[in-house]
């Protein structure tokens, strides 16, 4: 369990509406600091710059999907150890198992409740080793 409470979160998501909802949810309900990235292709440098404690990835994005971005992060030393949580509307059990074996910290299914999202993230954060 990490010593400090969860505070800085980076969210990679192409849908602007959901970006906004998540931002409001995390900032207003969760009192967290949020960095939202729209383009997955520049996500890694933005994450490096922002230095979040946890990264949230959308599953389906144009240009590069969440799992691919996740694998790329695993290959990048600066962000390799960041906990990653996927937000997805659909994923086969096989894909989920694969991501878990690669080290994904958790999965939140769409549609999520913005009221409960900060709590869900904190639960995943507390469950980390």
């Amino acid at each position, binding site marked *: 369990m990490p010593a400090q409470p969860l505070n800085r979160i980076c969210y990679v998501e192409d*849908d602007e*509406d*959901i970006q906004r*909802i998540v931002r*409001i*949810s995390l900032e*207003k*309900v969760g009192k967290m600091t949020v960095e939202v990235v729209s383009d997955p292709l520049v996500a890694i440098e933005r994450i490096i710059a922002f230095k979040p404690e946890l990264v949230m990835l959308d599953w*389906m994005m144009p240009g590069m999907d969440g799992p691919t971005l996740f694998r790329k992060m695993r290959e990048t030393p600066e962000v390799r150890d960041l906990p990653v949580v996927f937000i997805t*509307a*659909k994923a086969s*059990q096989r894909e989920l198992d694969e991501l878990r074996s690669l080290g994904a910290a958790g999965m939140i299914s*769409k*549609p*999520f*409740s*913005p*009221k409960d999202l900060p709590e869900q993230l904190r639960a995943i954060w507390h469950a980390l080793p």
Partner: protein
Amino acid sequence: MNSSSTASGRHASPANVDLRQSADPRYVLADRVEQLYSQMPIAIGATIVAGAFATWELQGRWLTELVFIWGAIVIAYSGAATALLIAYRRRSDVIGNAEQWLRSLGIAALANGVSWGLAGAVFFRSLTEEQQVFLSFLFAGITSIGIPVYAASWPIFAIYAAGILLPFTYTLATFGSRLFLDIAVLVPALYLVYVGIAYRLHQVFISGYRLRHAYGKLTDDYTALNQRLEQQLVELEEARRQVEASGRKLALFAERSPIAVFEFDVEGRIQTANPSAETLFGFAAGELIGQTGTDKLFATAIRDEVRERWRELFRSRAPVIGLRAISTRRDDAEITCEWSLTPLVSPENRVISVIVQGRDVTQQLEAERMKQEFTSTLSHELRTPLTSIIGSLQLINSGVLGDIDKDVLELTTIAERNGQRLLDLINDILDVEKIESGKLTLFPEALALGELIAESLALNRGFADRFKVRLVTAGEVPAVTINADRKRMLQVMTNLLSNAAKFSPEGGTVEVAVAITDDSVRVGVSDSGPGIPESFRERIFGRFAQADMSHTRQKGGTGLGLSICKRMLEMMGGKIGFSDRTGGGTTFWFELPKHS
């Protein structure tokens, strides 16, 4: 040609040799015995007549008593011989005792001969010359008669004649007359000639009887063979008719079959193709027959795999089923067919040919793909905007953005609730689709029932609050584990609890009770609602089942929930049902096996 015909002419025809050898010796012997006995009346008659003559001629001398005694012996012999003949005629076993009968006849013949011989030995010396001539003549005649009578067995003739001639020869030799001594020398020579003739006749008889029996046997064999052949011909004709009928049936099956049917030879060349095959591939049968099936029917990319499966079929003799392969039609259009290859194997385990059947699944695959695409679209494209809608409304309604006007809040609450309903419907439709297509995967694990119930109550309390209904457990939930999929069990509980809350009166209570049996756990969710209308009970677990459509509009619900619960519980080895609750209301229950 010449040499071969000479060669065959030099040897006795093997058929003849075999024919005579094939006669059963027992039958031949029996026939000879029969021949001998059939001559007995002549021998007996001749003995009586000759005996009577001799007695008459020889009486009136000093030996009169002796002559009569001799006559009595001849009569006694004749009686005994007649008795033997009668016994022979009455015998039951014609074949078996032939040798015994032959021996008896030999003894009789010896007795006959000796009785005459005795007459010669005893009377000859004291007879007149005339009488001596008479007796000699009689002996010659009696001996001669023996040849035809005993010809079927020369040894019998030999002992018969010896019985007559031996004592007579002795008498002649010791008589003291020069003439009689000469005769005594001639008689044995004559005897040997007689026996020689009897031997020849004996051989002729045996040969004749053998031929007769061999021929008879041949005729019998031939008749039996003929009958067997006739029977086999009838059976063969019947079999031919059956084969022809089943052949016609098979041909009809292939011809009218909606799937393509080919017959390949063991080299993989097309032997026959039915009309469906012609239609499917666009080739006339004439263009297909004789071609290598793999090259003609399958797209280049798949040919290697098809060849491998073909070889496997020859190795294992087992049919190949469900082989999906892309084929190129005559018009270059690509189609996907599902193939089955069935080897026709002979009783010697040799592959005779291979029946190849192909079903066009192109449209089916396209339909499956479209359905999957639709499901995927429904899943993603509908859920994503709903996430935004419901999420936004939730944030507004939660008050984190500040106070909102009461009327606005009422409307946004309605919007959130209906958004949620839409989402529930989508989720339910997706579940139904997964169940139908067999793609619903469950992840059963050992679950503590108490925790599951507590969690489901917590999840649904907010919903129940809207109807001012309390969710409670009836007493302590016993510590028991079930083997079930956690997420799906929460879905089942949510369904039952939300239904119970919806149909309970305001201020009512929904009660969850657990009962444990030996190997299963039963969970009941009881409401205090109006009960289930009689007309609805039958179809309550059917799809889109709603007792009263006005409820749907009032309280929400897709009408899919219970049918999904039923299928999921069944997949987990459980069942679901309901019963009326005493004092009003309904109890919905499900049973699941205990975790062992």
